[in-house]
C-alpha cells in the first residue's frame, strides 16, 4: 500500500526532524561538555564551572528527545513501534547512558570526597561519550535501513546495527558534539579554562570535519545525488569547515556555525530518508513509508494545533533561560567567603542601603 505522503505527514516529518535537530544542537554541547569534564577541569573549581556551564539547561535540553519520541509515537506510531523494538539493545544502551549521565550531575556535588567526585566525573564523561556515539549509529541506521519484512517487524541483532557506515555515523556525532561542546565551553568560561576549551575545539575539529565529509559523501553515494540531499550536505560541510577560521574573531559565530552544521547534518539525513520512515535492507518493497507509518489525519490535526500554540512558547522560555545564564563563569564566581544568607542581605542592602553580607551566617553544608 504505497500512497503519497500528505501535507500533514510531511509537516510532522519536518517537525520531528526539527525536534531531533534541536536535541542534537542543545544536548550535543551538553554531551561535549560532559565528555570534557575531567580532560579540561584542572581542579574542583574548574570542574564545577564546567558542570555549571550546562547545569541550568541540560535537563531542559533532554526534553527535546522525549518530545521527539512522543511526537513520533503520536504522528507515526508504526515508525515508533518498528524502530524502537527493532533497535532494542542499542536503545537500551542509550537509555542506560542517559540514566547514568542524568544522575551524575546531581550526585557529583552531593558528597565532598575526591573519590566520589572522580567516580561521577568518569560516569559523566563515559556516558556522555557513549550517548553521543550511539545517536549517530542510530541515525545512520535509520537512513541505511534495517533487515525488515513486509510486516514491518525489524529482525536485527545489536551487531547488525554496527556496520561501518553506522560506526562512521557514530564517529561523526561523537566528534562533532565534542567540538560543539568545547566551543560552548569557550563561550561560557573565562581565563585559562576558556583557552583550553578553544584549543580542544581546534584539535578535535579536523576529526569532525573528515568524518562528516566522509559520512555525507557515503550517504550521497548510497542515495544518489539528489538536490534535496546535496544542498543540506554541502551546507553542513561549509558550516563545519569554516569553524576554525572564525574562532579567533568570534567564538559566538564559531559556535553558531557548529550548530548550523548539526542542523544541516540532520536535514541531510532526513532528506535522504524521505519519503520513508524506515527503509528495509531485506527488500525495498518492504520499506516502511511515512504514509504507512502515519497516524490518522485527525490526530495529526490535533497535534499540529498543540504544536503551533506551544512550541513557540517553549522556544521563548528556553531562549530566556540562555539569556539569564549568559554570563561567563569564572573562578571569582566560586571562590571567596560568602555566607548562605548573604543573598538576602545583599538584596536588602540594595533597598535599605547596608547590611554587611559577611555577618549573617549558617553552618557550612557542602554542596
Amino acid at each position: 500500500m504505497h500512497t503519497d505522503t500528505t501535507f500533514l505527514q510531511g509537516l510532522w516529518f519536518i517537525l520531528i526532524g526539527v525536534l531531533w535537530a534541536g536535541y542534537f544542537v542543545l544536548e550535543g554541547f551538553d554531551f561535549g561538555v560532559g565528555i570534557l569534564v575531567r580532560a579540561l577541569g584542572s581542579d574542583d573549581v574548574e570542574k564545577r564551572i564546567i558542570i555549571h556551564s550546562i547545569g541550568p539547561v541540560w535537563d531542559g535540553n533532554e526534553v527535546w528527545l522525549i518530545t521527539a519520541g512522543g511526537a513520533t509515537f503520536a504522528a507515526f506510531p508504526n515508525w515508533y513501534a518498528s524502530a524502537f523494538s527493532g533497535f532494542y539493545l542499542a536503545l537500551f544502551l542509550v537509555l542506560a547512558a542517559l540514566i547514568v549521565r542524568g544522575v551524575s550531575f546531581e550526585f557529583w556535588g552531593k558528597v565532598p570526597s575526591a573519590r566520589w567526585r572522580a567516580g561521577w566525573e568518569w560516569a559523566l564523561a563515559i556516558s556522555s561519550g557513549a550517548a553521543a556515539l550511539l545517536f549517530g549509529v542510530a541515525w545512520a541506521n535509520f537512513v541505511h535501513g534495517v533487515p525488515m519484512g513486509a510486516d514491518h517487524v525489524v529482525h536485527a541483532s545489536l551487531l547488525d546495527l554496527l556496520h561501518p557506515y553506522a560506526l562512521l555515523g557514530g564517529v561523526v556525532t561523537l566528534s562533532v558534539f565534542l567540538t560543539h561542546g568545547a566551543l560552548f565551553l569557550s563561550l561560557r568560561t573565562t581565563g585559562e579554562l576558556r583557552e583550553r576549551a578553544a584549543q580542544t575545539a581546534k584539535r578535535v575539529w579536523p576529526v569532525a570535519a573528515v568524518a562528516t565529509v566522509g559520512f555525507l559523501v557515503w550517504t550521497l553515494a548510497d542515495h544518489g545525488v539528489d538536490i534535496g540531499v546535496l544542498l543540506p550536505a554541502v551546507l553542513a560541510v561549509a558550516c563545519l569547515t569554516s569553524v576554525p577560521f572564525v574562532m579567533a574573531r568570534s567564538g559566538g559565530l564559531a559556535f553558531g556555525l557548529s550548530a548550523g552544521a548539526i542542523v544541516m547534518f540532520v536535514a541531510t539525513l532526513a532528506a535522504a530518508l524521505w519519503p520513508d520512515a524506515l527503509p528495509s535492507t531485506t527488500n525495498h518493497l518492504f520499506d516502511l513509508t511515512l504514509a504507512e507509518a502515519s497516524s490518522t489525519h485527525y490526530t495529526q490535526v490535533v497535534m499540529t494545533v498543540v504544536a503551533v500554540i506551544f512550541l513557540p512558547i517553549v522556544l521563548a522560555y528556553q531562549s530566556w533561560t540562555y539569556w539569564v545564564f549568559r554570563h561567563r563563569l569564572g573562578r571569582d564566581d566560586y571562590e571567596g567567603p560568602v555566607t548562605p544568607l548573604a543573598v538576602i542581605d545583599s538584596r536588602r542592602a540594595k533597598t535599605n542601603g547596608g547590611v554587611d553580607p559577611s555577618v549573617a551566617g549558617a553552618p557550612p553544608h557542602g554542596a
Partner: protein
Amino acid sequence: MSVLDLARSQFAITTLFHFIFVPITIGMAFIVAVCQTLHYRTGNEVYLRMTRFWARFMLISMAIGVVTGIVQEFQFGMNWAQYSKYVGDIFGAPLAMEGLLAFFLESTFLGLWLFGWNRLSPRMHLTTAWLTCFGTVLSAYFILAANSWMQHPVGYTVNHVTHRAELKNIFAVLFNDTVLLAFPHTILGALTTGGMLVIAVCGYLLLRRRGNEVVHRSLRLALPFTLVTVLATMVFGDSQARLMYEQQPMKMAAAEAQYNTRNGAPFSVFATGSFTRHPKSLSKDITIPHGLSLLATLSWDGQVKGINEINLAEQKKYGPGDYVPIVGVEYWTFRLMIGAGILMLLICLGGLLLLRRRNKEVPKWFLRFTLLGGLLPILGNWTGWAFTELGRQPWVVFGLLKTSQANSTNVGMTDLIITLTGYIVIYGVLIAIGGWLMLRELRHGPEADPPAPGEGAPPPAPAQRPELILAY
C-alpha cells in the same frame, strides 16, 4: 517464564521504581514552593531555611524520577510494539503533549530555580518554583489521561482495515470521566506522600533531639496539610470505586474476592485461605456488613455482581477466555492501599492532638510511629497502582486489546533477560545511592537557627556561595 511474562515483569519493575520518586517529587515540589512563598510574603528567614532543606529531598528524588521516566516513554515501543501500533493514534497524543507542555516546563524552570537564586528577582524566582511545580502536576494529568484511556477507552473507533483504534475526539480522551477522578486521587496522594515525608523527617529529628525552628514549623504546617490531603485522597478514591464498578465491575468483584452476585454485599477487612475460583476454604474473618454494596452502589442493599457472573458475561461479549485478574493480588492490594491511608490519617490526627498540648513534648512512641509514616505513602502508591493495573488484566486496553497480543514479536528471551538484568542492576544502584543520600540529608538536618541577638559570636562563615547551595 514466557517472553510475555518477562516483558510484563520489566514494565512492572521499571514503573513501580519510577513511581517511588514521582509522587515524592510532585509533593515536595509543592511543599518547597509553599515554603518559598511564605518566605516571600513574610520575609521570615526560617521559611527560606525550610525551602532549602526540603528542596534537597526534592532534588534527589527528581533526579532519579527524571532519568527513570525516559525509560517509561521508550519502553512502549521497545517491549510493546504491537500495543504501540494498535493504540498509537490515540495514546501517542497525550504522551507528546506531556513532553511539549509539561516536561519542558518542569525541567527548564527547575534549572532556572536551581541556578537562578542570584540572577532572578525574588518574585521571578518564586514564579519559577511554581512553574516547576505546575509542570509536575500537568505531566501527571497527561499520563493519567493516557492511562485512563486504557482503563476506559473513549473517543475512538476501531479501524478493521488497519487493525487499530483511531482517535475520533481528543476532548473525550482528555476529559474522560476516569481521568477526572484518577487525577485528583493521584495528585492528592502525591501531596500526601510529600507531607508524610516531611512529618517522618521531622519525627526523626525530634527523636534525635535535633528539633529547631525549621523542624517545628515544618511539622506544624505538614500535619494539617497532610490531614486534608489524605482525607481528600480518600474521598476521591471512594468516588472512583463507584465509577470503577460501572466501568470495570470485574475489578470491584476481585477487590472483594466476591465470586457470586449478591445484594447487600459485605466488605471484608481480612480473609484467609486461597483465592481459588471456587473457594471453599476462603474465610473472611472480619466483615463490614453491607460495606461493599455501599462502596460500589451507594445503597444499603445494592446488588454487587460476582466474579463468576461477570466472567460469563464477558465470555459472551468478547469470546471464550478467562477474564478474571489474579484475585488474591487484587484483594490484598486494595486493602493495603486503604490501610496505608487510614494509618496516615491516624498519624496526622494523633500529631495534631499531641501538638495541641502546651509545653509538653511529643511522646517518643508517637515519633517512632511517624518514621513508619515515611514508608506508608510509598506502600499506598504502589498498591494503588498495582491494584488498578493488575485489575484490568487480561486486558491492556479494556475490552479492546489483550496484554497477550500487545508485546513486541521480535524481542526475544535473550533480549529481555539482558535488559531486565540491566534495569535491575542500574535501578538497584540508583535506589541505594538515592536512599543513602536522602538519609545523609536527614542525618545532617536543616540549617541551625541563627543565634539570638547578642548571643555569642556568629558561626564561622562557610565557603559556599549561597546561591549555589542547592546547585550541584
